[in-house]
Each structure stands twice: as structure tokens, then as C-alpha cells.
């Protein structure tokens, strides 16, 4: 099986932004044009996360998602501000292939169960945002990294699996946007505990990082900065590795 390499794009007030460790959102342009460019680069799939929806308690920007869907010729997932089954229904009707749940999954795992039953496991992803404390202990966060929970990523991952969700998007808050590589320990622990696919996210800066994540058990890899920034000044320039490069690396 080929490893999926997924650009993970962050949205804030209809704009594309890029954060570092979930902070300092930098404006990087119009999401629609980014989608158009990724289309032509023949990307496997795209992930969109609205990072302000939960924090600002705003609803989902369905208009934007409709625009994205009409321009996006590849499967794409959406997460951010989802509060009800009705929301999911509407998103799927607009053409979103997979729904990503975060804050609501932590608050109420029963909701994930219900969603997975209604829409099928394959269309429900639960995202885990994990951050380490000064002793290296890992903890799950919600609301864009602002709210700390008592959950441990592995324990939560097991719950997610039991609830019937089809995939886990595992993001390391400490590594996100740093380009220094994934939190490999975290990937190893979580993917070792569950049987459902784990998408590694947060920290990729070069192709070698993908390889490392896969070796630790990730089924797919996601990255943000690496695909939107170029060079030492982090100049905004969208790129995506050629399929042959990825194949050569992953074997």
C-alpha cells in the first residue's frame, strides 16, 4: 500500500493561515487558489482545519466549504466547529469526504459513536492534539491547543477506536510548524495501541520525516509548513513532492 501524503491546511476567518505550535497564525493567502494549485499537483487528499471555529464558538463556514468542494478534485476532510449530526450531514452533502472531530469527541465520545454508525467509520476521523509537559508527559488538548484535558493520547486513542471512528489524526502541538520532524515517540505509542490507521501530523520539514513516521507505525503522513513554505525566510510557495520521490523513499 502506498503511504498517503496529505497537505493539512488551516483556515481562520476564510483565510489560509499557518501556525507554529498552534500559535502565531501567519496569513498565507486565499484557500481557493491553494486548492487549485494542489489539484494540479495531483495530491492524494487534503485536510482542512478551521482553527478559529471552536475557539470563537462560531459555526461552520459552509459557504467556504462549498467553494472548496467545487474546486477540489480530490477527496478532502474537514474539521472545526462541528457540533451536531446535522452539521455532519450538511458537510457530507457539500462534498466533504471525511469529517474530523476534536473538541466534541473529547467532550462526548458517544457523539463519535453515533456519527460513525450513521455515516460509516470510514467517514469519521477523530483528531488528537497532544502536548508534552516539562516532564515529557503527554496530554490531550482541545480548542486549538487552549484547553487542557485529563486524557492521555493512548487512552483516548483506544476510546476512539472503540467508538467506531475510522482514523486518527495525531498532531503534536510541540512540533507543529517547526519543520523539525514528528514526535516519533508519540506516533509509536498511539499507533502501537490501536489497529485503526493513524495519520501523523505536526513537524514534517523534509521527506525523510515521512519515512521516520511510517517506520514508527503511521499509516499516512500530513504536513502543513513543508507544503506552503519555501526556504529559510518561509516564503509562501506551494509545493508537493512528486509521487516518484515518495515511492522511492517509502519503498
Amino acid at each position, binding site marked *: 500500500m502506498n503511504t498517503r501524503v496529505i497537505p493539512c491546511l488551516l483556515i481562520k476567518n476564510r483565510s489560509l493561515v499557518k501556525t507554529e505550535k498552534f500559535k502565531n497564525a501567519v496569513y498565507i493567502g*486565499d484557500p481557493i487558489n491553494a486548492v*487549485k*494549485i494542489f489539484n*494540479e499537483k495531483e495530491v492524494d487528499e487534503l485536510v482542512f482545519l478551521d482553527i478559529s471555529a471552536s475557539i470563537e464558538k462560531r459555526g461552520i463556514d459552509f459557504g467556504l466549504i462549498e467553494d472548496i468542494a467545487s474546486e477540489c478534485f480530490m477527496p478532502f476532510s474537514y474539521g472545526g466547529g462541528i457540533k451536531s449530526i446535522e452539521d455532519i450531514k450538511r458537510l457530507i452533502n457539500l462534498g466533504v469526504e471525511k469529517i474530523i472531530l476534536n473538541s466534541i469527541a473529547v467532550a462526548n465520545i458517544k457523539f463519535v459513536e453515533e456519527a460513525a454508525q450513521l455515516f460509516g467509520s470510514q467517514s469519521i476521523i477523530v483528531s488528537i492534539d497532544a502536548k508534552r509537559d516539562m516532564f515529557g508527559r503527554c496530554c490531550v488538548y482541545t480548542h486549538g491547543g487552549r484547553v487542557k484535558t485529563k486524557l492521555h493520547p493512548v487512552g483516548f486513542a483506544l476510546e476512539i477506536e472503540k467508538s467506531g471512528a475510522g482514523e486518527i489524526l495525531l498532531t503534536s502541538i510541540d512540533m507543529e510548524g517547526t519543520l523539525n520532524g514528528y514526535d516519533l515517540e508519540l506516533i509509536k505509542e498511539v499507533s502501537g495501541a490501536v489497529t485503526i490507521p493513524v495519520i501523523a501530523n505536526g513537524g514534517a520539514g523534509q521527506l525523510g520525516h515521512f519515512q521516520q513516521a511510517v517506520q514508527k507505525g503511521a499509516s499516512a503522513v500530513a504536513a502543513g509548513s513543508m507544503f506552503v513554505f519555501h*526556504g529559510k*525566510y518561509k*516564503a509562501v510557495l*506551494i*509545493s508537493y513532492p512528486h509521487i516518484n520521490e515518495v515511492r522511492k523513499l517509502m519503498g
Partner: protein
Amino acid sequence: MVLYNSLEEYRVCKYCIMDTSDPEIIFDEEGRCSHCKRYFHIAQERILPDDELKIRLGALVEKIKNKGRGRKYDCLIGVSGGVDSTYVAYIVKKLGLRPLAVHLDNGWDSELAVKNIELTLKKLGIDLFTYVLNWEEFKDLQLSFLKASTPDLEIPTDQAIIASLFFVASRNRIKYILLGENVVTEAIMPKRWSSGQSDWKYIKNVHKKFGKFKLKRYPYFSFFKRLYYFYLKCHVINILNYIPYDKNEAIDILEKEIGWKNYTSKHYESIYTRFVQGYILPKKFGFDKRRAHLSTLICSGQMSRERALEEIAKDPYSSGDLKRQDFNYVVKKLGLTEGEFERLLSLPIKKFDDYPSYASSSFYRIIRFLELNKTIKAWVQMFLGRR
């Protein structure tokens, strides 16, 4: 659709392919137009023999290197992914200069453009800075120009490019901005087709009249900013005028050595530019910018008139599918419905002079007059500490 001044008959120049789609075109008794005559006039002054060019280029490079000594970069280049700017990047590295590249992202980049930029800069080892325009704001400005109904729809981008270059140059204390504008492929462009790239007053006024939001983050190039950069001694140099520039040769080199890919037409690296030049201008304003580009190539001996005529007879869009696709995309991205867009296209045609600009302001007329007066110009330069 206005093809040409309907009182006069349709005419094409006997030497180049400029025609009456420029209402200001003048023909002589032999049937040659004012544009190609002007070209040769400029060429005589500005296109120098090869050995003379070599000397001038050598001196220029020396000066740039000297001024930039001890600094991280000695010059700034703009990159769009197109032939001219990519060739500038190539040449500048060949000359041993240390450039910093700037790209203006106006939200319309094509995949080919970003790929070309990525390849070029990686291959040549040039650092990049991207100036990203705020899309919601810029959309408002582009819509204002559609509402203003003037043919210079791309002016908001042109202005932002030059303003962002100066901004990055001054922030990095770079004294030379090297651009790809050139005589041999670009000298012909009717005034009525596009004016005011550097006229901030014009842009500001059009936006004031038709825009909805305030322009807070849009980089502009006002008269006072120009004075400031003048004070900073920031120079703009069209480096391709310092070499014998042959477009086809340049394309060949870039394809072979960099893996750069060519476009179907000039300036088609941006989707909006492609749509403006390939659809809006011919349909609404009755002219085709390729006519000017091809005519310049005829004049500079880089293309035969027959080839140019064949070229201009083709639809600017290589396929109807692409045209439809671009149409839908542009309408959606500008946040319009098809009906609203068609309504904008059917507004009566206006021209540059219909809006207030630096060109029409008496204050700036005086300033320009002063600039023309050699003694006063020298005095101003002395006053500003510039030789």
C-alpha cells in the same frame, strides 16, 4: 463590442501587426504605424551594439558588487515564474551577483508559476521572500477596476509588485532592483490599452469610488514613497536591456538548464492575467494585447510578420474547455454570480483619463515639469545628496 473607431476603416500596419484596435494609432503614407516607428526610434537610442553593451554591463555589475560588499545580498529580483523574470534570475547568477528574490502572491498564481519559481530558485540557489496580498482586500480592488470599466484591469497587481519590491529592498538595505522589463520584447504598448501602473493616485481614486473596504495592507507606491526611495538611493535597472536578449534563446536555455516550463502566451503565469488578456480585453475592449507583444518581436527581428499573423489569428485560449474553466473560476473567486459578472462586462467603456490621477493633477504636472528641467533636476538631486 468596439473594435476600432467606427468612423475610420479597419487598418493593419504594413510592417508590424498593430491595427486600429488602438484608436490612437497613426499611419504614414507608406502604411507604417506610429508604434513600429516609435520602436525604431527607441531602439536607436537604447539598443546598443554588443561590444558597447558588454562594457556597460561590466561597469554596472562592478557598481552593484561594490555597493553590496559586506551585505548579504547585493541586488533584488522579482520572480513571477514567467520567461523574463526567470531569465533575469539566471543571468544575475551567471554574472556572479548575490540576489534576493521577491514574489508577489496576489491570489492568482497558477500551478505552473509556483513550480517554475520553486525549480528556478532551488536550481540557482537563490533565497525567496513572498509578499502575500490580503485576498479579501485585493479582491475588492480588482472588482473596483472591473466596475470602473477601464481596460487597465491588471494595474492593482503591477502597482503592488513595484511597491513590494521597493519595500523588501529598503528593509534589506539593497540598493539595486533588477527587473526583466525590456525594449526588444515589450517596447510596444498603446497608451489607451494600459496606463497608470505607477499612478497611485489613479488607483486610490478608482478604489475610493467603487471599493467597499479600506485598503489597509495593500502595498502602494505613492509619490512620497517614491521620494523616500529616491532618498535611499534605490535604483531600478532593467537588466535585460544590458544584454542581447533573444526570447526564444532564453526559453531554450531555461528549459534545458533549469527544467523551467513555457506558457502558451506572454504573462499567462497568472490565471487572472490569462483571463483578462484572453477573454475580457478582446471581448469588452476589442483589443488583443498579443498584438503588441508580437509586433515588438517583429520589430526586434525575433519573429516574422507571417508567423505573427498566424499566431494572432488563433484564439488566445488554447482550448474552449480552459476558457470555460477560467471563466467559472474567476467569477467564483471574485464572489460574483455569472449574471453580475456579465453586467460588469457590459458597462460602458471608460478610460484612464476619466478618473483623477497624478497625470491629471496640476501639482504633479509641475513636479514633472521640474524633473524635465535639467538644471532644476540637478539642483534637486544635489539637495537630496545624490550625484
